[in-house]
């Protein structure tokens, strides 16, 4: 982050310590229904900040009060100032990756050319040529996003060893901006799952507690950013696959508006819902990545021609925002997301986050989305239907694994039986059923009608409110294996996120608190939902929220 304009010592402190936003425990208590757990987390930090507020001249020593900063901008700054080389940066990340990967297992493939590409960036720096906005930035790419010459399996055995002949548009744009693809991240097979346990290859662990899942399906991408194995990463979000793991791993996760980012090169799961999203350690980093990957693509007719604003530039100026920078902002808290079936710790974290928004000047109102609960079944019908169609191409004829058989029907049957995992098979069966003659109207068509209702209810709510907020997930990260045999419980975890995909809206998940679990607590993410193509607004609010959120440091204990 560039240094803020120095007007007075207190201004300087404002951006570094966010003191004006700090509320003492006394004033906070009656407002929030905090659990004791939450308060306990606060204690040390609160006292540190309180000490600071009593003596603003003392620079903060406790790192817990440092707001997340942009890793992308700091790398850029070090390269431009020649303090560090891209090779140094790459070396640091690769060392950490090698150290942590045996525990976390977020990568299905690690690039062998990272150092060489970093040296290339250094030559560019030396030559004084213009650097792309992501020069020297190491990016993890979810394995269902095609990378030329690098394995891309979508987490499926049926594509084991498959190397696409082209880069996905998002990857091409990242590379053109100077980014280095460090590797391909683990995921639930073809995006179907919420834990990475559905991967055909390995299970990724949550850096906050390696006995827990990182979420999914983009679990590898979230865990890799959380564990600083890479700077930022790409994921994909069909029903929450970016937002849920962002919440579980304590990172920022952005699901853009449907059509904002080209899907060309993203292995289709449910084409009408799929969106490429990104993970970062800060809102700024997510904004910079979104900036690079957004825009119309002639290879994707569903990509939008809507103008791409500079999502990142205006975030800098918020370094010197007012004491109530969100004044006048109308925030709707979705009533259906803070009731039954939602972890009490999660609810209190979200309510505390809402209070924090209020302190920033926003007004919080509870809003009801009556069709909310219909989203889950409608989502599973539509996503499975589209998946049953999209996955037809994995037949072993042109690429991927082919069974050795003599007869055509067995070629199809055996290649797919061997290559696809149980969750994928289940969804193909469900989708095939839903699209069958005689059932189409009862399932697919009806789900489309529900989708229209959901779209409308969001539209109505977002006409009254600037943004809507909810938890990203009803619970914190659960144990590996805990829900493997209970698919319905796993599906229920998507309740907070699927509606947003059905409506095609953008949503940003920002870490907002912790609940008890693991050695250092488990992160909870706040989901902010905006109207179509309002990413700019979401990122601005998210940035202010994140930079002013007191007392949390979302760095997992593993590091």
């Amino acid at each position, binding site marked *: 982050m560039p240094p803020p304009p120095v007007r007075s010592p207190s201004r300087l402190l404002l951006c570094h310590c966010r003191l004006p936003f700090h509320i003492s425990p006394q004033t906070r208590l009656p407002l929030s229904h905090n659990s004791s757990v939450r308060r306990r987390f606060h204690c040390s930090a609160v006292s540190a900040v309180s000490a600071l507020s009593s003596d603003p001249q003392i620079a903060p020593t406790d790192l817990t009060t440092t707001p997340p900063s942009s890793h992308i901008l700091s790398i850029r700054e070090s390269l431009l100032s020649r303090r560090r080389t891209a090779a140094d940066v790459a070396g640091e990340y690769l060392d950490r990756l090698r150290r942590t990967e045996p525990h976390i297992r977020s990568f299905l493939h690690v690039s062998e050319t990272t150092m060489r590409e970093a040296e290339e960036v250094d030559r560019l720096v030396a030559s004084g040529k213009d650097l792309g906005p992501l020069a020297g930035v190491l990016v993890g790419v979810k394995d*269902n996003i095609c990378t030329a010459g690098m394995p891309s399996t979508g987490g499926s055995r049926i594509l084991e060893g498959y190397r696409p002949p082209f880069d996905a548009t998002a990857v091409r744009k990242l590379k053109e901006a100077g980014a280095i693809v460090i590797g391909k991240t683990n995921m639930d097979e073809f995006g179907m799952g919420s834990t990475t346990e559905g991967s055909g290859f390995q299970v990724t662990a949550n850096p906050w507690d390696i006995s827990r899942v990182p979420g999914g399906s983009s679990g590898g991408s979230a865990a890799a950013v959380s564990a600083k194995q890479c700077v930022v990463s790409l994921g994909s979000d069909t029903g929450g696959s970016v937002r849920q793991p962002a919440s579980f791993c304590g990172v920022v996760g952005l699901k853009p508006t449907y059509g904002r980012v080209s899907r060309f090169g993203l292995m289709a799961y449910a084409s*009408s819902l799929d969106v490429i999203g990104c993970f970062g350690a800060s809102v700024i980093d997510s904004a910079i990545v979104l900036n690079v990957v957004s825009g119309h693509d002639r290879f994707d007719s569903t990509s939008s021609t809507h103008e791409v604003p500079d999502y990142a530039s205006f975030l800098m100026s918020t370094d010197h925002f007012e004491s109530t920078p969100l004044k006048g902002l109308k925030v709707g808290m979705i009533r259906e997301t803070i009731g039954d079936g939602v972890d009490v710790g999660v609810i209190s974290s979200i309510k505390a986050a809402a209070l924090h928004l209020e302190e920033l000047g926003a007004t919080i109102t509870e809003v009801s989305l009556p069709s909310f609960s219909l989203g889950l079944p409608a989502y599973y019908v539509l996503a499975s239907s589209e998946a*049953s*169609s999209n996955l037809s191409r994995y*037949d072993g004829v042109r690429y991927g694994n082919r069974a050795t058989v003599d007869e055509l029907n067995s070629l199809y049957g055996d290649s797919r039986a061997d290559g696809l995992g149980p969750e994928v098979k289940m969804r193909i069966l469900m989708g095939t059923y839903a699209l069958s003659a005689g059932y189409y109207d009862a399932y697919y068509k009806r789900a489309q009608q529900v989708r229209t209702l959901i779209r409308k209810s969001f539209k109505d709510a977002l006409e009254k409110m600037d943004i809507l907020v909810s938890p990203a997930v009803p619970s914190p990260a659960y144990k590996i294996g805990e829900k493997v045999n209970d698919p319905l419980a796993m599906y229920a975890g998507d309740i907070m996120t699927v509606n947003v995909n059905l409506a095609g809206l953008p949503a940003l998940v920002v870490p907002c608190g912790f609940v008890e679990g693991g050695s250092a607590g488990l992160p909870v993410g706040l989901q902010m939902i905006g109207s179509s193509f309002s990413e700019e607004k979401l990122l601005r609010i998210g940035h202010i929220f994140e930079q002013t959120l007191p007392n949390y440091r979302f760095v997992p204990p593993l590091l």
Partner: protein
Amino acid sequence: MALIFHRGIIANSQFFSRSSGVLFRRLRASRSCTSARGEGTANTLKEELIQVAPKRALEPNTHGFEAIIGIETHVQLFTLTKAFCSCPYVYGSRPNTTICPVCMGHPGTLPVLNSKVVEFAVKLGLALNCGLSMTSKFDRKHYFYPDLPKGYQISQFDIPIATKGFIDVDLPVEFGGGHRRFGITRVHMEEDAGKLLHSETGSYSQVDLNRAGVPLLEIVSEPDMRSGLEAAEYAAEIQRLVRFLGISNGNMQEGSLRCDVNVSVRPIGQSKFGTKVEIKNMNSFSAMSRAIDYEISRQVLLHSLGQSDQIFQETRLWEEGAQKTFTMRKKEGLADYRYFPEPDLPEVVLTKEFVDKLCQGLPELPEAKRRRYEKMDLAMQDVLFLANDNHVAEFFDASLENGADPKLAANWIMGDISAFLKNERLSITEIKLTPFELSELIASIKNGTISGKIGKEILFELLAKGGTVQSLIEEKDLVQASLIFLIVDPAAIEALVDKVLAANPKQLEQYRAGKTRLQGFFAGQVMKESKGKANPLVLNKILGVKLKGES
């Protein structure tokens, strides 16, 4: 192609000539209706056809049964690139050389619609008198086959781009002629699949995806055809239409025009359709006609033997060698293609301006051409010939624009020019003769500058080497003056006539006594005297006057 087809019919179904009287009457009736175009007349016409159909079925070889025929035609569009990617398609390319990740169905690839496909579909829809769906969409049709890369075909299901049209057809004169109007149910856009190449031994098959993703228009007809001839003429008219529109080469051998025919037979008077059988693998109109007539006979035979339960809903292949249809596969219930809207492609929205522009740009279509030529008092045979090929029609029309007499131009084109084309295996666009020179040639003969015989010689020069009529006449004049120089000077001819009359007083007397046939004798004598160089028109004119002794 049309000629081959006619011969085929003569060989196989003699009964058409017998039915010609009936067909002809229907032609007259239809003609009066078509003069006023519109939905209303289309309906009455269809009813009329249905009423007339039983008359046909009374013919001996259908034994009280009538055939119901519907046709699905796939027209491969010759756009520069495929329907959803930028690969070219060239028939006969080496296998798997015009493919890319998109048409191979690689993971992550998406279709992007080629706008030319929509343009061509709209043109065909308009030409087939269809209603257009201003908003239509694509759907996925699912089935597994190795030539189908994605496991689904991008097609249009419940909202095709064009529906409810008709096509007007003139049956060949040699089969009694007749005008028919066949209903068009729908036209929709879709993509072609690849091809499987089976090894000789059958132990393996190879996949060629060159054709995968090539744009197709599927035209579904109403079940309005009643015979192989009608079906073949329907298909031939579709071929003419797509060629006139410039949207496909319509080549059956290359598979650019493929017809799947549904045939069923029912006793006359029964309203319920019989079991329908699909016939495939006919790669000429002649084969189509024969295959259908064979299939009708087969089904009629089963009906008359009381074995109609032996007619199965199945797909049969036409075997050219055996001149028979054979079972390819029996249908096990209805295939469930699990259609659903293609989420990767936005809806196809047509604007009124777009449609209007295409409508204004439509060329004159075969039916309109035939009606126009008919009004020129050309024989129906000539009308059908000229309007059969758009290049021939263009040549003919261009000659007329230069003032050529329609009948004479038609005669030259259908006679010597088309014989030359056939011998040299050329198309009319490849010859050196221009329509302008043809009209000059016709004018030169008409005004007596050259004789018909000389005209023919000049024509072949023009066809083979090009040049102008004027320069050839002059050139010949210099090189072979004795052969082609004509005496046109009336005074010179008059002198010759006087000489001949004086030398044959006896014949002159007989002529003046009433034996006017002798004019030919005198003309011959004068021509002989001129060594063949006297202009015959001038000669006859002067001779006539002199013989009558009027001057």
